[in-house]
């Protein structure tokens, strides 16, 4: 059941250039599944900001989000401190249907600020005994985060656009050099990256998670739609039917 809560910030630290990791205390933390997001209110803004769940701590009832300063809203979010409270709607959206999938080996493909939800996913997969291979793309060296954390979960490859860290180029360049031996791929990142990845991995089963500007974040306003692949005259709501979709479910434009 979706709820609005006032959540205390337990920690708020910078982990890369313009990138922050925030831990929030919530009685609902253990209900947050990989792929879901929370919708955060900010004093100086009419609209909330969607941010993905990057991990949960069941025992201590808290969860982690990671965000990058993109505009005024995320800048305001970067100025909070431990001890402050945030007005949050949670849990929002769909999640990776892990219980329904036959999985031995998963390929994780993340770009920039699409990486955080995949960390929670990769960690959950590893706990289920699934082998995880991760391919993560960033703009440059200063933007890279969580590399060591992903390495603890499995083979991890980093690409940067400018070659300042890892291999130079895009995640798709790395994927072409990897063996095909995974059952499913899971990808989150900017739409051009998702398009390239879904084209490249067309022969595989996959799940992608999408971003769109949101009004309500709960499914009432039709701001966040994406065309259905089978019938482009119909649409799915990213905030409610998504953000996680089967790769063949939606039409990326």
């Amino acid at each position, binding site marked *: *059941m*979706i*709820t*609005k809560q006032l959540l205390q910030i337990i920690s708020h630290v910078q982990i890369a250039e313009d990138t922050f990791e925030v831990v929030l205390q919530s009685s609902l933390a253990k209900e947050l599944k990989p792929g879901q997001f929370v919708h955060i*209110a900010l004093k100086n*803004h*009419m*609209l*909330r900001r969607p941010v993905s769940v990057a991990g949960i701590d069941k025992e201590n009832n808290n969860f982690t989000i990671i965000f990058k300063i993109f505009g005024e*809203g995320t800048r305001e979010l970067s100025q909070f401190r431990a001890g402050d409270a945030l007005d949050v*709607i949670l849990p929002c959206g769909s999640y990776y249907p892990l219980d329904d999938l036959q999985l031995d080996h998963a390929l994780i493909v993340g770009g920039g600020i699409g990486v955080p939800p995949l960390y929670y996913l990769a960690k959950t997969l590893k706990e289920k005994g699934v082998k995880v291979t991760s391919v993560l793309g960033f703009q440059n060296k200063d933007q890279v985060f969580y590399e060591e954390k992903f390495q603890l979960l499995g083979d991890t490859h980093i690409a940067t656009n400018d070659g300042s860290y890892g291999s130079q180029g895009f995640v798709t360049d790395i994927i072409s050099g990897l063996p095909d031996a995974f059952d499913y791929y899971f990808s989150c990142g900017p739409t051009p990256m998702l398009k390239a990845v879904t084209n490249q991995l067309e022969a595989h089963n996959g799940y992608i998670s999408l971003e*769109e*500007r*949101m*009004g*309500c*974040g*709960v*499914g*009432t*306003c*039709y*701001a*966040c*739609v*994406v*065309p259905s692949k089978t019938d482009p*005259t*119909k*649409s799915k709501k990213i905030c*409610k039917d998504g953000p996680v979709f089967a790769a063949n479910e939606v039409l990326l*434009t």
Partner: protein
Amino acid sequence: MSLSTKMPGLTLKNPVMPASGCFGFGKEYSQFFDLNELGAIIVKAATREARYGNPTPRVAETASGMLNAIGLQNPGVEKIIDEELPFLRQFDTPVIANVAGSTVEEYEHVTKALNRSEDVSALELNISCPNVKEGGVQFGTDPELAKEVTYAVKQASNYPVYVKLSPNVANIIGMAKAVADGGADGISMINTLTGMQINLKQRKPIIANKTGGLSGPAVKPIAIRMIYEVRQALDLPIIGIGGIVTAEDVVEYLLAGANAVAVGTANFQNPLACPEIIQALPDVLNKYGFESVEDAIGKGHEA
């Protein structure tokens, strides 16, 4: 303290309802609070066929407001009657259906279809959506067309008809009089104001449709002025809309001459906006010396 107010077809336990397009068909927000608390519910626009709406991005944030160009996306009137409205039956809260179209015939068609629904108490005729190319906007800016479509819908409808006016006109009184002549039972105002926002880096409008409808606190002074003028010019009940966030805002609307209000964009910021406003309303009315909602209606005109 009595919060109740009466208008054609509507006996409201309080004057607060969610505005069309900002509450879907109620299901999502029913997870946050008991919809019995609402005065009424105005649901998302219905058109004859399902509509997909405009390309994304469809929303952008502005100073004290937002722009939207959803483009009246909805599943079509038949599906709304069969699959969406029955959910609202369980609540003791009147439902106002929002009717949209591109031609007079389409408005009539949607209106007649709604006659078969048992779940509706009144219609809100949307002649003011700025986000669809054909229809919508001309009906809301041309008094002759506004009168014609109001008359056609009024003839076709079993329910009282509230006509939702566009603020994108120079002479709001002329528009109000036109729909009154067409037989409107009431007026609701305002819909969004056409606006635009340009992204500096991309050097292009943020909304894919280029223009969108401005809503939120930014539009409230315009709505208050228009309601004040219309209340002075004629004697139809008014549902006041635009930028309402607090119970103080509601009282300001009552003073301007609104009989009830609808809350739009504020629902997105706070899913509990409506129940919180309703809860605060008695104290705020009391603070400003009113004995009931009806006592405050139009009092801004006495000075």
